[in-house]
């Protein structure tokens, strides 16, 4: 898949935006190298094993309306589900946008991470590499890694949550006007955080009659995903409980937040829900972009020495979410291949 023309584009972040950018570059004959601080690919499009079952703890299903994006989902070699089919409650009035007319919803029995894993196939990846700084040079930009080493490239791409991209842009000193403007742009809106609790219950637990529930009476829990319903016959009940953005922000540093979420689950679902057999908490500091923050396209900044710095992610295409991340990565690849900003 790797082309030979030019030096590799170095992409920071192996989430959906970074991977879709790398794939589109490779399709266009340009080598790409994807770095991520995590052990696996996918970023927030995340699935983990809980009692041997795959459980989604970021987005629990994927949705969109762009035919190209839907085709990319259909190309994933996984057990595709029209899930959620049974949706309970409509939550707060501004949620959930995934059910507006025209949206197609998809889940995988193996978990949503099957999508980024598929995108990553054949790509050059370096995992467990954290980029901590950017140093523009003559025609190149050097990426400083947390082990003190540097990686030089003519084109770097930040495919991270907007706040994480901003942290790296802040290391470009002195900030050229393009970088200062990009930081001001990112500062015009912020991402929502989300606390997510995965809980597995023994065979005696009642099975909810829905796939996802958006409780209308809770200020704590925004959505409950009936994860084990993705795999009929599953011996255990597995739920993914995600807290509201405002509540999550307030309790991000509160060590007792999982207890509060379980207490709320008991109030919503029944006393049994307070005591899972196994539970796993996860904090998403930058879970998703505010829908009123969407941008029309990714950034491609010209640095003073002539290097180019792209910024893509879920904020950089209309609609937000995994679809926007995927589209922004491809759009940025198109701009890089077209020689824009050079």
């Amino acid at each position, binding site marked *: 898949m790797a082309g030979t023309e030019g030096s590799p584009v170095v992409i920071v972040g192996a989430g959906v935006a970074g991977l879709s950018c790398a794939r589109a570059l490779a399709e266009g004959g340009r080598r790409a190298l994807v770095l991520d601080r995590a052990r696996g690919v996918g970023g927030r499009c995340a699935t983990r094993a809980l009692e041997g079952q795959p459980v989604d703890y970021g987005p629990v299903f994927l949705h969109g309306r762009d035919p190209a994006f839907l085709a990319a989902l259909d190309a994933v070699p996984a057990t595709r589900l029209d899930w959620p089919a049974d949706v309970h409650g409509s939550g707060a009035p501004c949620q959930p946008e995934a059910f507006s007319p025209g949206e197609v919803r998809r889940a995988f029995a193996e978990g949503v991470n099957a999508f980024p894993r598929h995108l990553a196939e054949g790509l050059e990846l370096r995992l467990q590499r954290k980029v901590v700084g950017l140093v523009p040079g003559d025609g190149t930009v050097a990426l400083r890694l947390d082990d003190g080493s540097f990686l030089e490239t003519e084109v770097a791409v930040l495919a991270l949550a907007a706040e994480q991209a901003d942290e790296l842009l802040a290391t470009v000193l002195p900030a050229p*006007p*393009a970088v*200062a*403007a*990009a930081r*001001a*742009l990112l500062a*015009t*809106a912020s991402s929502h955080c989300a606390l997510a609790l995965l809980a597995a219950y023994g065979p005696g637990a009642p099975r909810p009659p829905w796939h996802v529930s958006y409780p209308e009476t809770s200020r704590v829990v925004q959505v409950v995903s009936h994860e084990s319903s993705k795999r009929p016959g599953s011996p255990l009940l597995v739920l993914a409980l995600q807290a509201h953005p405002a509540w999550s922000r307030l309790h991000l540093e509160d060590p007792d937040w999982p207890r509060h979420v379980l207490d709320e689950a008991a109030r919503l679902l029944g006393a049994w829900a307070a005591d899972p057999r196994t539970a796993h908490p996860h904090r998403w500091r930058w879970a998703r972009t505010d*829908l*009123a923050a*969407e*941008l*029309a*396209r*990714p*950034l*491609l*900044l010209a640095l003073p020495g002539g290097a180019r710095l792209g910024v893509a992610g879920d904020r*950089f295409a*209309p*609609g937000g979410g995994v679809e926007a991340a995927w589209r922004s990565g491809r759009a940025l690849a198109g701009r890089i291949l077209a020689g824009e*900003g050079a």
Partner: protein
Amino acid sequence: MTGGGDALAQLVLRDRDHECEGFGPGRVCVRVVAVARLPTRAGPFRIVAFWNNRDAKEHVALVHGDVVGGSDVPVRLHSECLTGDVMGSLRCDCRDQLTEGLAAIQREGRGVLLYLRQEGRGIGLINKIRAYALQEQGLDTVEANLALGFRDDERDYAVAAHMIHGLELRSIRLITNNPEKLRQLTAYRVEVSGRIPHVIPPGEHNRFYLETKARRSGHLIDVDALAPRSEQADPVVVAPAPQDPGAE
């Protein structure tokens, strides 16, 4: 009462039971759904409301004189600008452009102004105000503005072209200084028989330019001192300022 009223009303009847698979690669479908008289400060018009399947926006046409089935009809495309058109913002010249577009059609004796509700994309107005905020910080680069979808120079005139077809205009003379508009409309099979330069007579509708000039010469104290500019994809020319022959 401007002429051609019955013909416009017939278009509503024509489109009432309209069903189609859409036209062209974008499968665009545009219907004329309502017509009424609209007297304006610039003169008498009829306002024609359109529905389309493409962008969930309610575009309108201001029509003067007999145009349905007509040839060489003067047509002006104006993109919505809430701050300029309605609020009279001096950050842009949109209101002057709109006023002059309507006046030009009255002078010609007939014509159509398509008022396109495309204030950016999606959250266009929100992001336009974000762009103004960046401007106040002196940080409004082209890249940032394009990311905000503000003053997007890749405006798509597919719906506008279909509105022209919907009005059954055989050929149009486009009131414009922007060759890109001509090119796009032609690509959507609109017969463009000529061009009318979009020129503002000095001292008449050009309050924006007079204000701007005053600011720049320092006669008017302006706390913001921000350079105003055109937000339409089609900058107007103030006569007798030198016209750019390269525009065509």
